[in-house]
């Protein structure tokens, strides 16, 4: 293995023979750079994973908080419904009709 990577450009001539020509460009990335590059990529990927996992966990906490909030609101709603049902109960209505001095129908006339 040479000191540097050599970049070539292959092309066929009119006789069908392959002609290989060295491009006069040389990369400056050696094995150490590659190691760094790999480590950097891995580090970025790990960071991304961590950020994603953290985001997911934070959303999980928010979700749990929202679930608790919903449960509380549902409980409040349920309590109001129960109170409405109690207010509509026939014994409550009867008490109110007495307060309003209402009396039962005595005689009904039909046409």
């Amino acid at each position: 293995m040479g000191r540097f990577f050599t970049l070539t450009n292959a092309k066929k001539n009119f006789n069908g023979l392959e002609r290989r020509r060295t491009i006069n460009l040389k990369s400056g990335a050696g094995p150490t750079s590659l190691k760094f590059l790999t480590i950097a990529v891995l580090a970025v990927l790990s960071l991304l994973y961590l950020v994603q996992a953290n985001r997911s966990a934070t959303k999980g906490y928010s979700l749990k908080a929202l679930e608790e909030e919903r449960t509380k609101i549902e409980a409040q709603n349920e309590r109001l419904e129960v109170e409405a049902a109690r207010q509509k109960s026939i014994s409550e209505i009867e008490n109110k009709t007495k307060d309003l001095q209402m009396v039962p129908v005595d005689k009904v006339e039909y046409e």
Partner: protein
Amino acid sequence: MSELNNNDYPEKRITSLFFILVVVAIVVFIRLFQISVLENKNYLAQAESQHKIIEEVPAHRGKIFTSSYNSSDTYELATNLTLYALTAVPKQIQDKERAAEEIAKLLFLDKNAILEKIKGTDAYIPPLAHKLSLEQADAIEKLDLKGIYISPEEWRYYPEGDLAAHIIGYVDTEGKGNYGVEGYYNQELSGDSGAFFAEKDVKGRYIQISAKSDPQDGTDLVLSLDRSVEHYAEDLIKESVKKYGAKGGQIIVMDPSTFEIIAMASDKSFDPNNYAQEAQEKTVDIFANPNTAKAYEPGSVLKVMTMAGGLDSGSVTAATEETFPAFIEIQGHKIWTWDKKAHGKENMTQVLETSNNVGIIFVQQRMGKSTFYDYFRDRFGFGEKTGIDLDSESAGKLVSLKQMQDVEAANIAFGQGIAATPLQVVASFAAIGNQGKMFEPHIVKEIIEHKGDKKEIKDIKPKFVRQVVSPETAEIIKTMMEDVVLYGYGKEAQVPGYRIAGKSGTAQIPGPGGYLEDKTIHSFVGLAPAEDPKFVILVKLDEPATSPWASYTATSVFSEMASYLFKYYQIPPNK
């Protein structure tokens, strides 16, 4: 030789080591196989339990509704209320003195009593308190006491209190329905729980919900019961029991065209919100519905069934006449007319009008035991459950044909020696009012199933049981019952302007060694209005003290109930 031994020694050691390694490898392999293959599920579960939560999401119990004739609204008879329980894990509580003091202050409890409960190092003790409000639960959570927990609990709430309690029943602390509709439809009302699967952090907080199955809420039920009629009937029977010095009483109002129960009242009731306290203060017997679970000897109201059988089988006609003495002797037993007087010559309508015991035995004997039994058991259905959708129904009692002596058949003909529930009696009259067609009595008229956010409403259609008597016989017997109210011992049942068909009954009560002296059960069952019955009403009074005859007690109560129903349902008079 010793040189050779010395040379072999390393090889032996290597061989021995090899075998030891092989054995160790086999042991390790077996253990590995055991852990990773055979006990895979167990270890997997252990690993998952460290970071995964499976939490049950309970289903809401279905609600029970009732309606009112003049309103399109439905009213809740049973609903749910989320309250909170206070639990403690004593071994986790660091400052027990403070915890007891703070809780006692907030919940107005005795500090020492709480301290006594949490002083140990138990991992579990029964909840310190139930039915805490949301505010109380929040206040306790804000204290941030280690080892003290708040958890939601769903409780059943009955907004109407003791109204129709025998029909509704109650739900116990385990969440199981008992008695009435709660007991009969417990499975449908309960629904199916859901669950969610989540990952948790070290503090047990959810990180991610991985899967969720929604709970299937219980089915809602809409009853045929009209709450206004039920309320009126309950008030009326309570007042009547007082007025006539009775020990108890019941009223049933049924629609004879559908066999739907409109009202089913008893003078005794209970508050299902406090059922445990009620059981202590009264008796467990208080929960049984006296209209469906308790049988009695109905007395003369059953003469209508005997007469219907006699007419339908062709044994007699309405015009059949006979001269009746004061008593008849069967198998050595003398059976007397109710007034111990000879009624003389009477036709079959007059037999009902004067409630003639000897006359009705004449009909039974003309039918013969077998035909008579066929009508009572196989047609009107005495001795078997009606099939109403209420828990704990009694079948009553009717002796078998083989065991039925002549004297027993004679007694059953006028409603003694047979035990029936008020519901069985009212259902047999409803069949007369419905052109002889018997349906299964029912109380639930609509079922609302929850499918996700959608609701599916199903009407309950009346279930036809059998043709009890022909439509012609039903019409004749209805006319005869009208005459009972017009000219016989049912006059008090009249409602001015309306035609009523009915029959009263004063039944003796069996006791040890025979029937009890001076103790009777009064009842009146009638159809109103007679020409096109909208209701069949049963009134029953247990041991009234003011009069020995039902024609002066239950019959008047019937009239009051019928008057109310005519006004409530706006049925104009027709005569």
